[in-house]
């Protein structure tokens, strides 16, 4: 087998290797505002900001941060949704050589304190609606300044205790400082972003992403998703910028191309209501979305071919795209949604469905240019497995992180000889297309034999009395681990354990049959729908 069999699936215009520009992330903004100053950079609540205006505000904030004593290498925490504030702060921090600390806006309490303490963030930039959350924990952090974008004036209700930083107002700071370029302190090899990530295993950690790795990622995706010159085309920015998917696929890519970012922040549950109207109005060229959002969009009677006609680049990531969603999109438009596989540790995408040719159903595509991928044996992680066999997915490429912030042991376990051990189980077919199977950490080894939870789950979920199932390994004195299933019944259904066991026996070898089956009301899942297997416990459910 060829060492990189996937190369034959590359579209003719995509090179196997790329010359990466020796630049920093804010250079993309500088280039675009130089070439197209009057292009609209972003639209928020129907208010447009041009690239020239945006750059001026970025510079104002950059000067303000310097005035607050921010120096090269200092960490600046951003607790912001998709709004002009995020974009301005992001480029301002980077221009002066400081480091963006990306934190999910939903983070609060001990977890927020932990992120701020571990990153040693000097400044926090956030919204007034989060200010109470912030001040509950800020005393136990290194934060010296708090910059708040005041939307509802809620910061006025805050009475910070003595010794705590007073609130500074974002727009006031920008307005009070010059629009001229600050002295740029960033270099390609510098740390640019600390990306807090937990994935499906629940333990937060921060991937260290340099300007170089993020620029490489942007360059790879630009080479992959080539579309004819689309001028100031719109991009629907609904994936949060604080995730690498949003940061790269929406923010950095749009700025690199001079696209118009249609910002859709998600403050509360009502925010997505106008989504279809927004798509109709702005006719975006690119819609990156998670599978559950595609599913909701395509469930609407208004989701017709006309709605998606301008969308040249519909992409999906974060979780596997259900087959019915892909099928429905094809029925409506005659085209496909392009799935990508990425992770914070890879600055965003590492594998992508070829564009426009696509990938086989269920595939996460092929490695991007200059990206190596291997599937290795699970136990020892040394030898590559044959095509079709399942193993752990390893990645190598210019977009891979430097390591985890202040966590050398975890870095050593995850990055070995330049290879990123993703913790995901996958397989590669003979043609070089990759398929995600499961998370390595969830693999069950029972009596020396491997059981992939998804194999058992898929069988159980096919039982007519069951709505869904999740399977985990539990300690077993004789076997090491036992296969344990948690199942949710269909409405008004009942089923005996014996029936479920008999059903399993018909469909799988004995060693995979669950030793225990718990009936539960709900299976915990993370925001992109992945079952949180580690959170599963016999929660008072009826054990059968």
């Amino acid at each position, binding site marked *: 087998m060829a060492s990189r069999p996937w190369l034959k699936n590359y579209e003719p215009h995509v090179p196997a290797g790329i010359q990466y520009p020796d630049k920093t992330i804010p250079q993309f903004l500088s280039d675009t505002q130089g070439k197209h100053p009057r292009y609209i950079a972003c639209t928020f609540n129907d208010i447009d900001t041009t690239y020239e205006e945006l750059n001026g505000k970025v510079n104002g904030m950059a000067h303000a941060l310097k005035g607050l004593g921010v120096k090269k290498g200092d960490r600046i925490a951003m607790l912001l949704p998709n709004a002009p504030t995020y974009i301005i702060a992001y480029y301002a921090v980077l221009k002066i050589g400081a480091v963006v600390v990306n934190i999910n806006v939903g983070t609060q309490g001990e977890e927020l304190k932990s992120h701020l303490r571990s990153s040693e963030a000097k400044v926090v930039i956030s919204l007034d609606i989060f200010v109470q959350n912030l001040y509950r924990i800020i005393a136990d952090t290194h934060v010296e300044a708090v910059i708040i974008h005041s939307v509802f004036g809620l910061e006025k209700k805050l009475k910070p205790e003595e010794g705590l930083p007073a609130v500074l107002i974002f727009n006031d700071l920008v307005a009070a400082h010059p629009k001229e370029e600050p002295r740029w302190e960033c270099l390609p090899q510098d740390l640019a972003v600390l990306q807090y990530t937990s994935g499906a295993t629940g333990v937060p950690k921060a991937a260290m992403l340099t300007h170089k790795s993020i620029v490489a990622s942007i360059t790879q995706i630009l080479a992959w998703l080539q579309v004819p010159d689309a001028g100031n085309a719109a991009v629907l920015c609904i994936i949060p910028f604080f995730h690498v998917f949003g940061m790269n696929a929406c923010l950095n890519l749009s700025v690199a191309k001079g696209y118009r970012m249609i910002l859709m922040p998600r403050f*509360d549950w009502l*925010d*997505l209501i106008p989504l279809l109207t927004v798509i109709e109005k702005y006719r975006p060229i690119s819609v990156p979305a998670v599978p559950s*959002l595609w599913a909701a*969009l395509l469930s609407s009677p208004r989701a017709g071919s006309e709605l998606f006609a301008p969308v040249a680049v519909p992409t999906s990531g974060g979780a596997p795209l259900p087959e019915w969603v892909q099928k429905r999109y094809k029925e409506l438009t005659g085209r496909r949604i392009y799935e990508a596989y990425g992770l914070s540790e890879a600055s965003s995408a590492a594998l992508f469905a070829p564009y426009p040719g696509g990938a086989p159903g269920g595939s996460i595509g092929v490695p991007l240019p200059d990206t190596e991928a291997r599937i290795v044996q699970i136990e020892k992680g040394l030898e590559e497995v044959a095509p079709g066999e399942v193993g752990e997915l390893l990645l190598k490429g210019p977009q891979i992180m430097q390591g985890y912030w202040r966590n050398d042991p975890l870095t050593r376990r995850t990055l070995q000889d330049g290879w990123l051990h993703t913790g995901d189980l996958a397989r590669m077919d003979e043609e070089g297309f990759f398929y995600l199977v499961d998370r390595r950490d969830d693999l069950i080894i029972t009596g020396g034999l491997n059981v992939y939870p998804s194999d058992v789950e898929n069988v159980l979920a096919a039982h007519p009395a069951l709505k869904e199932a999740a399977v985990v390994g539990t300690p077993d004195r004789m076997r090491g681990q036992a296969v344990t299933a948690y199942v949710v019944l269909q*409405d008004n259904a009942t089923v005996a354990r014996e029936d479920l066991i008999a059903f399993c026996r018909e469909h799988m070898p004995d060693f995979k049959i669950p030793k225990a089956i718990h009936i539960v009301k709900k299976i915990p899942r993370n925001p992109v729908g992945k079952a949180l297997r580690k959170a599963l416990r016999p929660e008072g459910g009826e054990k059968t």
Partner: protein
Amino acid sequence: MRELLDELKQKIVTELELTDIQPEDIADDATFFKGGLGLNSVDLLLLIAVLDRDYNVVIHSRELGEQVFINMTTLADYVMQNRR
């Protein structure tokens, strides 16, 4: 109105796949978000799609959503008045 309320509760449970609740457990004044049914923004998009599909009721703005999605009864009222 009673019939419509019950019908909406059934649809919410079925279409949004709320596995840990029965339609009859949903109070007429049940709210939709935290403290109520616990729906998120994607669930709401799906619910809006169902209203459009099954009742020809279109909810396309946040402002309208704020008025309609106060609780089950306000939703049923709106559907009753605007269904086609």
